């Protein structure tokens, strides 16, 4: 059973809500950069039913350099407050730095979500030392905060599987609980749109590895390019991809849009026979 620092997760599809403590992320553009705004966002997504909150202090794209100290300052005070306000909520922190991971885990975070393929291998030992979870992501072998330029794969899905399962086994070897490891194919990271479409369409191959799969699809460029739409117009495209991945067994969905994603996942889970209808009287009364 999936669990993070003693918090067992339901057997349904799960939602990880994005909380950006950044002034420059591509979708919210700083809306929750301030501490109060970030905390209000957390309260809101917990109220909506998010299973995990994912707090980040550095945007993924290239841009202003954010030092480890500044990143820690941004995320730590949110983690501390959230741990206090929502003791049972699973807290994830989006960071590729082992030093930041250590600080937030000390403050009560449950998961290190390293979206950059673990550039600092000691992150795994840090997570293990707290019994915390990790996300093992494929970032196309690129350094943090770089964009793909003409990246080519013989078989992108095969490369993803080899990379993330190797990382996952390294995490377990380092002492991370096996039931607290997620794999993430890293849509858009080190991939062009067609590569991201391929890993979406072939989600089942990732699921077949046996590791629970996290999908971070929300309003990303691969959706934008398929539909030629800007980030604030990408909800439906994101939800379509969400449904396709959930149908094939992906487990956790990182999203800006908690309620909409939960509804899609509830519907797909019902189609898969994982959950019952909330109301079930039509023709039965």
């Amino acid at each position: 059973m999936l669990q993070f620092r003693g918090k067992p997760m339901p057997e349904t599809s799960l939602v990880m809500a994005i909380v950006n403590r950044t002034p420059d992320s591509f979708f919210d553009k700083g809306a929750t950069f301030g501490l109060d705004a970030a905390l209000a966002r957390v309260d809101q997504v917990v109220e909506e039913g998010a299973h995990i909150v994912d707090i980040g202090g550095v945007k993924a794209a290239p841009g202003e350099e954010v030092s480890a100290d500044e990143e820690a300052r941004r995320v730590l005070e949110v983690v501390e407050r959230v741990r206090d306000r929502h003791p049972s909520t699973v807290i994830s922190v989006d960071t590729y730095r082992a030093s930041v991971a250590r600080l937030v885990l000390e403050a009560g975070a449950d998961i290190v979500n390293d979206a950059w393929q673990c550039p600092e291998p000691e992150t795994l030992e840090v997570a293990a030392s707290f019994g915390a979870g990790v996300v093992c992501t494929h970032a196309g072998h690129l350094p943090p905060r770089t964009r793909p330029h003409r990246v080519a794969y013989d078989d992108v899905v095969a490369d993803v599987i080899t990379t993330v399962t190797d990382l996952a086994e390294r995490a377990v070897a380092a002492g991370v609980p096996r039931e607290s490891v997620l794999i993430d194919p890293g849509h858009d990271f080190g991939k062009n749109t067609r590569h991201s479409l391929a890993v979406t369409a072939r989600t089942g191959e990732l699921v077949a590895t046996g590791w629970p799969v996290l999908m971070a699809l929300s309003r990303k460029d691969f959706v934008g390019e398929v539909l030629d739409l800007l980030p604030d117009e990408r909800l439906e495209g994101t939800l379509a991809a969400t449904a396709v991945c959930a149908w094939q067994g992906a487990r956790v969905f990182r999203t800006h849009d908690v309620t909409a994603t939960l509804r899609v996942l509830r519907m797909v889970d019902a189609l898969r026979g994982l959950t019952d209808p909330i109301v079930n009287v039509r023709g039965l009364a």
Partner: protein
Amino acid sequence: MRVAFLPSAPFLLPGLGGGPKDLRFACLQAISTLDGPVTVLGAATTDGPIGGSVDATPWGARGRPTADALPLALAVGASLLEGREHTLVGIAPRSGVTTGTAPTAVTGVATVERGPRSEPQLAAAENGDAAGDLVLTGSVLVVADGTATRTEKAPGHFDARAEPFDVQVEKALAAGDPEALLALDPALAAELWVGGLATWQAAARALQGHRWRGEVLWSGAPFGVYYAVATWCLAD
């Protein structure tokens, strides 16, 4: 002898969307100026003649992957030649850097000689070994591009030095000036994610010593990467 310069964006390959129509049209227009067999120069992992298939599946095109996919630039060149007789010659980066960054020097890759018909011929040699020279005649297609740091959304993010660098390239192409291509700074090019410097400079080395009339048919950086389509014809 005629030379055409094209960019090597993957979207120019079959099955990847085609890219901007005017850019593609300019590429085909430049190729139409070439006569006879064409020698295609483009980035590869090793110097020298190379064979293989135009296969866009590594960049996400649908279809079955082949076992002998050509390197990107040579695949773009071979694809746009649409079945015309050609020879592919790989130009290796000079510093072991990865795709998207630039080489640091060019030596002994290609030289130009007067041919039997008083036209330059291209001699491409692996590792500059004269004994291994491959002498080729006809037209040359140079597939390479400039900086990838022109805008905030560019693959390498924004670098203010990128546009002046590309202006230098464009002036060299417009003037038919091999020396100006050879004068480009490889270290700066590497920082600006110039993918085509080794190829441009190999071509320039092969073509120097002659007067060329240059024309730029298309140039721009619509996605933060600088593309130039140009033609040179012999002026002496």
